[in-house]
């Protein structure tokens, strides 16, 4: 739907619910915020953003006329507006009237205040995730945990899963097909062969085919108490032996899908059951099924207790399985998952193949430490230590590190530490033959600051593959030439500077002082005119926007955990999460806890 249409649809839910008797204090605060916002919009925005063909398709005039209702329903749009004003990309630099810094602050504060009032006024919306199957990683781990054996080669049976909204946990694109069902069949045989060959044999997963054992198996496999007809159907299989009963558990849709059934009697949002909550928690933090302790909590109906839930989060994060957050969530969010398949010109980047694994480990261990060691998430922006082995230390020019073991080392300067100094990210945002300031800029803008640039038009040009070009233009000059075209400049003025500030890192993340025979120039002028110099300058810039980075991380984590794209009501939830994390000194676990305690994590509604 076009933004202008959306803005006109800013419905009156907000106003309606105000009428239903909102707390007077919140209401008057909201009134104040609304008045302030209205005058700021009139002063700086609605000259262009109005009418039938508003600039960028964003019609703010009609929003003003509708008294800013719909900040809730159209929260994603308003979030974009807020960020654009905050990061000075709006009003454009060409505009005569520019808001003072204080005005930009109050713009954002007023929007937040309206959003909160709206969230408290209306019925809360936890969003809806479509029924989703276990993805490849989850399937393998769940089979192995259920049977208690490792099944070599199981993962290799399955094609790589596609991702929706950035993550392979999003059900919309997790299709099932005959190919996959055949693989589940083969995988089941493979897993049961492995189980039969294990010391305990099949009996270690299913003692006998009597009712009690079958019921126990199904409760674990289906991650909830078994239903009578499910048990009965298996008892009919008993004469075929335990293998058939086990196969019927592993091939059941109740095992392959993460089921959260409709509740016919429910109107609006309702709390998820304890078993559903246990499943959400264990797949979020471990990428696999709940263990016996978590299941016992759910069986006893204790998980709804805040203190119990919090204790379980800590227990799960203490467990080595929580590395799943680094290998799945972090790897997909920050793109180092792509390092495994990245290709580099072997002649120009001789050491890359040997470094690939170490690069990945640096990134994964750094993310893992945020949650396992409860380190501040701001270490993603800047950190005074990092993980290296001898090879990566040599790549970084850090002396005195020997051996193949990854360990944490203190850093002598600010060139490394934080995602922008990781060779993994610097490589993943380069092409086989050169750096890509555009890809790196997009990474900062979208994956860290949460403000993705629009996609390029179909006729956009491409940069040459290789930065060793005959015409002698540097990559920087080439990009500048591109930005002379105003249609290109609109976006590239925002994208490129972040990437240019990282030009002192080559296409595999090694430090360089020279590129294309000329001294490296890593200075950049941001769209708002701010000058930044090199990675240190960029780090400072991002530290000044740490809440925005934390918010992006929280957004991504919410999508990953719930397996659905963001909905409007999530914006207020995320405001709250960021507040909590800030108050907790940005500790990694405070982010996880805030999300787990949040309304959408603990509630759902019928589709």
């Amino acid at each position, binding site marked *: 739907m076009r933004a202008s249409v959306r803005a006109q649809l800013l419905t009156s839910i907000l106003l309606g619910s105000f009428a239903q008797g909102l707390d007077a204090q919140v209401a008057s605060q909201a009134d104040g915020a609304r008045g302030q916002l209205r005058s700021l919009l009139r002063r700086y925005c609605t000259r262009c953003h109005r009418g039938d063909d508003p600039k960028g398709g964003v019609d703010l005039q009609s929003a003003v006329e509708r008294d800013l209702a719909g900040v809730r329903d159209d929260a994603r749009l308003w979030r974009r507006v807020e960020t654009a004003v905050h990061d000075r990309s709006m009003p454009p630099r060409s505009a005569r009237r520019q808001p003072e810094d204080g005005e930009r602050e109050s713009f954002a504060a007023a929007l937040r205040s309206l959003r909160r009032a709206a969230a408290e006024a209306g019925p809360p919306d936890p969003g809806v995730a479509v*029924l989703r199957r276990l993805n490849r990683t989850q399937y393998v781990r769940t089979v192995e945990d259920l049977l208690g054996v490792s099944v070599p080669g199981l993962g290799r049976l399955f094609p790589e899963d*596609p991702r929706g909204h950035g993550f392979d946990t999003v059900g*919309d694109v997790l299709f099932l097909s005959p190919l996959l069902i055949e693989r589940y069949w083969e995988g089941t045989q493979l897993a049961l062969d492995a189980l039969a060959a294990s010391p305990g044999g099949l009996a270690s997963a299913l003692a006998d085919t009597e009712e009690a054992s079958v019921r126990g198996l199904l409760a674990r496999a289906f991650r909830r108490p078994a239903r009578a007809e499910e048990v009965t159907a298996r008892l009919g299989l008993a004469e075929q032996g335990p*293998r058939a009963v086990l196969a019927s558990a592993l091939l059941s849709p109740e095992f392959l899908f993460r089921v959260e059934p409709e509740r016919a009697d429910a109107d609006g949002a309702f709390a998820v059951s304890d078993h559903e909550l246990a499943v959400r928690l264990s797949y979020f933090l471990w990428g696999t099924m709940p263990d016996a302790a978590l299941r016992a909590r759910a069986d006893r109906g204790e998980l709804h207790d805040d203190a119990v839930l919090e204790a379980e989060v800590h227990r799960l994060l203490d467990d080595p399985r929580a590395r799943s957050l680094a290998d799945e969530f972090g790897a997909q969010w920050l793109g180092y998952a792509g390092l495994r398949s990245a290709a580099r010109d072997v002649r120009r980047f001789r050491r890359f193949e040997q470094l690939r694994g170490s690069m990945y480990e640096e990134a994964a261990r750094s993310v893992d430490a945020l949650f396992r060691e409860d380190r501040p998430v701001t270490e993603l922006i800047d950190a005074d230590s990092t993980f290296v082995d001898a090879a990566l230390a040599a790549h970084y020019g850090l002396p005195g590190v020997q051996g193949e073991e990854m360990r944490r080392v203190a850093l002598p300067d600010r060139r490394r530490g934080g995602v922008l100094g990781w060779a993994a990210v610097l490589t993943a945002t380069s092409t086989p033959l050169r750096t890509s300031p555009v890809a790196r800029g997009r990474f900062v803008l979208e994956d860290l600051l949460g403000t993705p640039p629009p996609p390029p038009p179909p006729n956009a040009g491409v940069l040459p593959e290789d930065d060793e070009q005959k015409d002698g233009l540097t990559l920087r000059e080439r990009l500048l030439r591109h930005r002379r075209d105003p249609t290109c400049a609109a976006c590239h003025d925002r994208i490129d500077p972040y990437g240019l500030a990282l030009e002192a890192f080559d296409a595999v993340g090694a430090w360089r002082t020279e590129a294309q025979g000329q001294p490296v120039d890593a200075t950049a002028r941001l769209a708002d005119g701010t000058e930044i110099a090199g990675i240190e300058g960029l780090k400072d810039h991002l530290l000044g926007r740490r809440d925005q980075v934390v918010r992006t991380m929280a957004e991504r984590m919410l999508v990953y955990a719930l397996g659905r794209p963001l909905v409007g009501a999530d914006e207020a939830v995320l405001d709250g999460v960021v507040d909590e994390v800030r108050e907790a000194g940005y500790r990694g676990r405070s982010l996880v806890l805030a999300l787990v305690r949040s309304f959408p994590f603990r509630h759902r509604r019928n589709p």
Partner: protein
Amino acid sequence: MIPRADAMSARAHALSSLRSIRHHLDPSPGPTRRALLRGAGAAVALPWLEALTPRRVAAVGPVRMAFLFMPNGVLPSAWTPKDTGKGFTLSPTLEPLEPIRDAVTVLTGTHNANSHTGEGHYVKTTALLTGAPVRRTGGKDLRCGISVDQVAAARRGGETRLPSLELGIEPPRHIVDMGYSTVYGATISWRAADRPAVKETRPRLAFERLFRNAQLGGRADRSVLDVVLGDAARLRSRLGASDRTKVDEYLDAMRSLERRIERFDEREEARVRAVVGDRELPADPADFVEHVSLMFDVIELAFRSDTTRIVTFMYGNAVSGRDFSFLEGVEGGHHPLSHHENDATKKAQYQRINRWFVESFVELCARLGCSAEGESNLFDRSMLFFGSGIQDGNRHDPNDLPILLAGGGAAGLCHQGHLRKPRHTPLCNLYATMLDAFGAPVDRFGDSDGRFDELRV
């Protein structure tokens, strides 16, 4: 020389047929397989092609169809032949077709009307075989129409153990690009309008899928299926409409497994074993060229063993940046070079890549041709479609799509050399024609408004 499949092991057969193709295609001494694929395309008549003329009247034996997708379009000036008809002059990109020119049609003038909107690649790729509109979405509610291979599979696929086989080289990319899920760019085969068919990209697993069925079958398996289908029915009743479609995917896929189990039959197993012999499972391919070659082995063996008669194959996903530096004179990736911006050296490299695809397609034709079946061969009994969803990679032009159709003489295809249709003829007319020849006729397919009668005997 036509090797007899039942008399020698499959590996020996594959090697000898390769030797035979090599011998005919590449006159230079001691060529490697890679040299063959890089291709010399010398104009030597191939013995198996003699079998194509004179045309037999009755089609004997089963007819197959394969659809090969090439990403990123072509350089039109080097692709489109200047003249038309059976005696047409081969263009520079199409020169490798020389040995099979009597059994190929170069089709000009067709398009998919529904793919003019949307962005440059994804819509035009994913709808290539459906001709249907594509819903713009980053993941939710994908929709693209049912593809021609799946229409054929739904109607005739039950006659073989696998209704159809979907193969490719590249797994899906993990981004949403231009607002389109990259599932689109990685999919040409659609089982239903909202249900893409997952493709296999690993040769080893594709082989196993075809030829390792021994563990399927028996009463125990049948009753296990009954139990889980019962679970699915109960689950379905507890869900809302949107979640039900996911359970329906499960049921649909389970039914095809069920059919495989029902069709399990020792004679069929023995027949397959005779084709495959003691062939080893292939290791992971070392490079792209070998990867394609192994997938061609899969296609050939699948057809020869009659495990399936319907195949789709994607050389790459939409916007594939595959490094083609293995070709002489080419430095760089496919997609970047396709945006040549009229730079002469880039155009030359782009054209060289285009030509490699044609060489590769001819290699598949040759392999199938070397595979005898009764008095005919697999090339003659296979309708082989090759094409891209855009004409010109530089401009993403959806008009005048570059399309080749080869083989299928035994199915009654009558090739026309360079066939130029009026501009904006629906490409779906070709699919409707192919479905007729395959024995799965439909009144209309996609936006078809007729048939290409000249392609039928």
